[in-house]
């Protein structure tokens, strides 16, 4: 019986470091599969393993390294960017935990980090996460808030819109539609304040639906901004 107990304890002690090693190897293999030099892959994997031990997801770090490599960024700058991103996600993780989620998912952490990089403050992140009725809506909520903020609405306005949508029990589809709605209103000449009031008053996606129905990808060819015409270039949807 003593031998069995000892084996269990040894297994538990061995699981964590062994899994961490395997995880780091996974990042390294993934980077090498994309043609990243072995030395750079090892360095990124070490950063990812260290971050993972602190509860930070390693996937986005590997993705960032792959992005940098694809953009032909010099290796030292890739390492620097990955290390900075790991730190940003660590800060984002603390911000999310401050909203009451003790063990936030990698998706929420990554979304919070990107939102904070876009200019959202930790308290704004916490506000969005707290307003999310379910954990799976927190990440898209943060992404939408960040997109709205980057569109010029301002962080507080963006957070107010997203929180309002969540408290009004709007669907995921409506939530994810908000950046498109805001963009459309902006193109119509509405100010950020008007956009906020219009969306919060319920004049958002519903109004756009009718217009979208007729589009289905049949929008005329766009005209490039560089040619001096209106900004009509965009992404057309045909479901």
């Amino acid at each position: 019986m003593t031998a069995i107990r000892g084996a269990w304890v040894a297994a538990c002690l061995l699981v964590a470091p062994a899994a961490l090693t395997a995880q780091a190897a996974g990042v390294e293999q993934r980077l090498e599969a994309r043609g990243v030099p072995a030395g750079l892959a090892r360095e990124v994997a070490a950063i990812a393993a260290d971050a993972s031990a602190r509860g930070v997801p390693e996937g986005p770090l590997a993705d960032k390294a792959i992005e940098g490599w694809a953009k032909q960024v010099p290796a030292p700058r890739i390492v620097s960017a990955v290390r900075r991103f790991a730190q940003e996600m660590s800060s984002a993780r603390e911000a999310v935990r401050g909203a009451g989620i003790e063990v936030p998912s990698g998706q929420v952490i990554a979304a919070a980090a990107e939102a904070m990089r876009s200019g959202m403050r930790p308290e704004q992140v916490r506000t969005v996460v707290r307003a999310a009725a379910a954990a799976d809506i927190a990440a898209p909520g943060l992404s939408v808030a960040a997109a709205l903020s980057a569109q010029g609405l301002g962080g507080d306005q963006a957070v107010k819109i997203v929180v309002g949508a969540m408290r009004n029990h709007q669907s995921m589809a409506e939530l994810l539609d908000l950046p498109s709605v805001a963009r459309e209103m902006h193109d119509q000449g509405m100010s950020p304040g008007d956009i906020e009031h219009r969306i919060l008053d319920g004049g958002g996606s519903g109004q756009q639906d009718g217009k979208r129905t007729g589009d289905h990808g049949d929008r005329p060819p766009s005209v490039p901004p560089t040619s001096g015409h209106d900004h009509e270039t965009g992404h057309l949807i045909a479901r």
Partner: protein
Amino acid sequence: MRDRDVFGADAHRYLDGEPFGELSGAEFAAADRLVAEAREYAQRLGNLDPALDEAVMAAVRDRVPSRQHGRLDWLLAPRTVRVRPVWAAVLAVAAALVVWFAPRASVPAGQGAPSVRTATDTVFVRFELAAPQARSVSVAGSFNGWRVGALTMSRTAGGVWSATVALPVGEHRYEFVVDSTQWVPDPTAHAQVDDGFGGRNSVIVVGPKGLVRS
């Protein structure tokens, strides 16, 4: 030699209470002795301890099946398992550690990216860029592992390049790649964000209902 071995057919009928023919004296004596023993045994059964049934069934349940029944019988037979709660907790912790730290090398690139996959829905998104002087244009982003050339665009009238791709709902980051070397943000995207390398990534948030334009 047992008594029944010396019995003939008539002796068996006698014991069964059926009509019988001629029996020898030895057969009568043996049969009567068997009947007497049977009565005595029945009398003992009538005075059994009421707890005997339960004790016997418990012994049967706890009995270890012999290997003669086969491994399948052993696997299928119900049995009582005794587990100390402390070891159950240790097992749960070990399982949680294995799941948490399991290598994720086989996870596709897009799933570990900052992009948010909130549903299984995919939406067709059309990208367009006016680049009359370009020889080639493609879209590289979080949805295709930033692979240059993975999503090539076609040149249309007026030097406008376009491509349509099915994307999962959620947030996506991307850039146009002109002539395989020049990374260009989409000026009409939902947002432009710092890419961490001194450049800008374009952001689109794709909803399940689709979007009209960025």
